[in-house]
């Protein structure tokens, strides 16, 4: 017998966790002498009140969709991929190489090529930790953390010594060619007579992220491989007994995870910056952890959580612009969300389970 109904597990617990995080965030805002209601108003108008705000919200959400899906896929195999940041950095390198050295005739082909490049580089960066976990039992969390730092050093070296155009002081690659420019939502929606802000960076890779959501859903719940990944995540001995190879599942789940994290680069590197800069990922790899936890590792949940964090990011930027609240408020909110939906899950779950048990006894 289930301890509580499924809807409580899927909807109620994340909602209560979120409310707890929101209450604490409000207390933090009060603590630094600002008005939380005013702050929320500012964030809503700044992030959702105009197509410009929406453009930024969706741009950030695109990043978080990719990294959130990456963490979620790994979670299904009970792997904690904390290396999304490094994988996304390497994905950026893949995109830059594809865009700089191949003369693409049209952006659609370039996007295909860049997606493949980004996914390959991201997956390659996840491959070593995955192999070490599968074959040598090295803890994937520690190795992926180490690979984040190594990725930063590699990118630094490549940008300063190899990709930097001659005569430039800036540690960044050359600008990509005009032909690989991805259409923004403004350019995509104009033919349909919908006016969308010209300045906002949201672009066609948002649609790519939505497709990725659907593909991940199909993969996890509608294919044999997805079944094997979930089976392995629930019980390793059980999966082994059923003839599922641990090594195979760890490798495949991590490669998919790394590939998804890498694909984020089609948005921030190709769609927005149009060149590779240092620290282009801006911590999006870590936000993926919060997004996956909040979305309960389900693509639809990840989608909702990514939009929420996109809103928080754009809203936070607006707050920093108009009030004395620094952007780091978002980091605090992110920490609280990870804390309540991840680490303190039982704090919410245990009393609820008791409550539902008591209710059921009352009926019987």
């Amino acid at each position, binding site marked *: 017998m289930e301890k509580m109904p499924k809807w409580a597990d899927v909807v109620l617990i994340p909602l209560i966790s979120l409310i707890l995080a929101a209450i604490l965030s409000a207390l933090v805002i009060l603590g630094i002498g600002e008005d939380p209601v005013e702050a929320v108003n500012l964030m809503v108008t700044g992030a959702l009140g105009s197509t410009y705000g929406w453009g930024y919200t969706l741009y950030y959400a695109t990043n978080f969709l990719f990294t959130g899906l990456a963490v979620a896929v790994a979670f299904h195999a009970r792997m904690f991929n904390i290396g999304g940041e490094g994988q996304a950095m390497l994905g950026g390198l893949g995109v830059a190489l594809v865009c700089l050295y191949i003369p693409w005739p049209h952006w659609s082909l370039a996007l295909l090529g860049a997606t493949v490049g980004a996914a390959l580089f991201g997956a390659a960066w996840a491959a070593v930790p995955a192999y070490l976990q599968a074959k040598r039992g090295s803890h994937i969390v*520690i190795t992926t*953390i180490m690979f984040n730092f190594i990725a930063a*050093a590699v990118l630094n070296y490549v940008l300063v010594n190899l990709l930097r155009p001659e005569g430039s002081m800036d540690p960044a690659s050359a600008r990509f060619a005009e032909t690989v420019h991805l259409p923004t939502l403004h350019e995509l929606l104009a033919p349909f007579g919908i006016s969308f802000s010209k300045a906002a960076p949201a672009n066609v890779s948002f649609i790519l992220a939505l497709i990725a959501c659907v593909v991940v859903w199909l993969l996890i719940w509608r294919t044999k491989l997805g079944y094997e990944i979930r089976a392995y995540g629930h019980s390793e001995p059980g999966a082994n007994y059923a003839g599922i190879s641990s090594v195979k599942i760890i490798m495949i789940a991590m490669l998919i995870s790394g590939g998804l994290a890498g694909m984020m680069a089609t948005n921030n590197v190709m769609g927005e910056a149009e060149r590779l800069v240092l620290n282009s990922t801006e911590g999006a790899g870590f936000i993926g952890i919060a997004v996956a936890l909040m979305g309960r590792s389900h693509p639809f949940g990840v989608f909702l959580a990514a939009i929420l964090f996109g809103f928080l990011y754009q809203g936070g930027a607006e707050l920093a612009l108009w009030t*004395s609240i620094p952007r780091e408020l978002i980091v*605090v909110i992110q920490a609280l969300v990870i804390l309540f939906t991840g680490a303190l899950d039982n704090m919410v779950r245990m009393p609820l389970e008791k409550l539902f048990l008591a209710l059921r006894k009352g009926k019987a």
Partner: protein
Amino acid sequence: MDFLTIIQVLDSTIRLATPLLLACLAGLYSERAGIFDIGLEGKMLAAAFFSAAVAAVSGSVWLGLLAGIAASLALSGLHGLASITFRGNQLISGVAINFLAAGMTVLIAQDWFKQGGRTPSLFDGGRFTPVDFPFAESLAGVPILGPIYSELLSGHSILVYVAFLAVPATWWILFRTRFGLRLRAVGENPAAVDTAGVSVVGLRYAAVAICGLLCGIAGAYLATALQAGFVKDMTAGRGFIALAALIFAKWRPWHAMWACLLFGLLQAIALRFQNIELGGFTIPVQAMDALPYILTVVILAGFVGKAIPPRAGGEPYVKER
């Protein structure tokens, strides 16, 4: 490279190894008791901010140190609550603590000091001053041994000596006391400890508290001794290098010291020389930055000895009824 340069590089090695060593020993207590802690970075950062802030306001570095330790202990308590009491995921809790510290320190710094997320620079009373050994001045002239004594060993802040004395102390506590035996046992087989009538929860909280104490000292050292004041994200990955050193040392105190000195040396060299020429081949500075992490991965991979963590590490203990 002359003798004096070597002494200077080694001198800065000791300074840079100190925060690593303190954080590494902190992690050692926690992980030996079966609580993984990837939140060392966050605890150090919180301690760095609160020590610098209190030292700046009160003018007393000792009050600062206490405030830093208190901040770090508070985060340790949170980690304990999540991972011991509520049996949550220790790794996720650590991630949350790192972000909480990264965000809150800047938020509070901006609110209190309005200097773009930093504290005011600390002056004399607000910083740990160097401790000079007896006769350091007069012995400086003695060849070889003189500079080693007066430059290398003497003239560090008190916290440096605390850190290095903590190594034998940790060894003694862990391997020569009853508390240490129980602490190690709780990381290997908590059920056995429970059967013996010793509280698993109590021991783990004690270990997490010691971890908080040492991280607090590490953070305070960063902000009030190594540098003069807090700046945003000033730990700069040191908590993770300490974690790497802990694995590199295979969770043993003396080895932890050597690992931290090695990683401190790498930082000192990277700080002093930008690119190193080695027989016509140039080692880029980025390789030096990445080396601690690469070494740790190699060790973890088991190609050079095998790093086996405490057996019950990362798993919440559920008492059977």
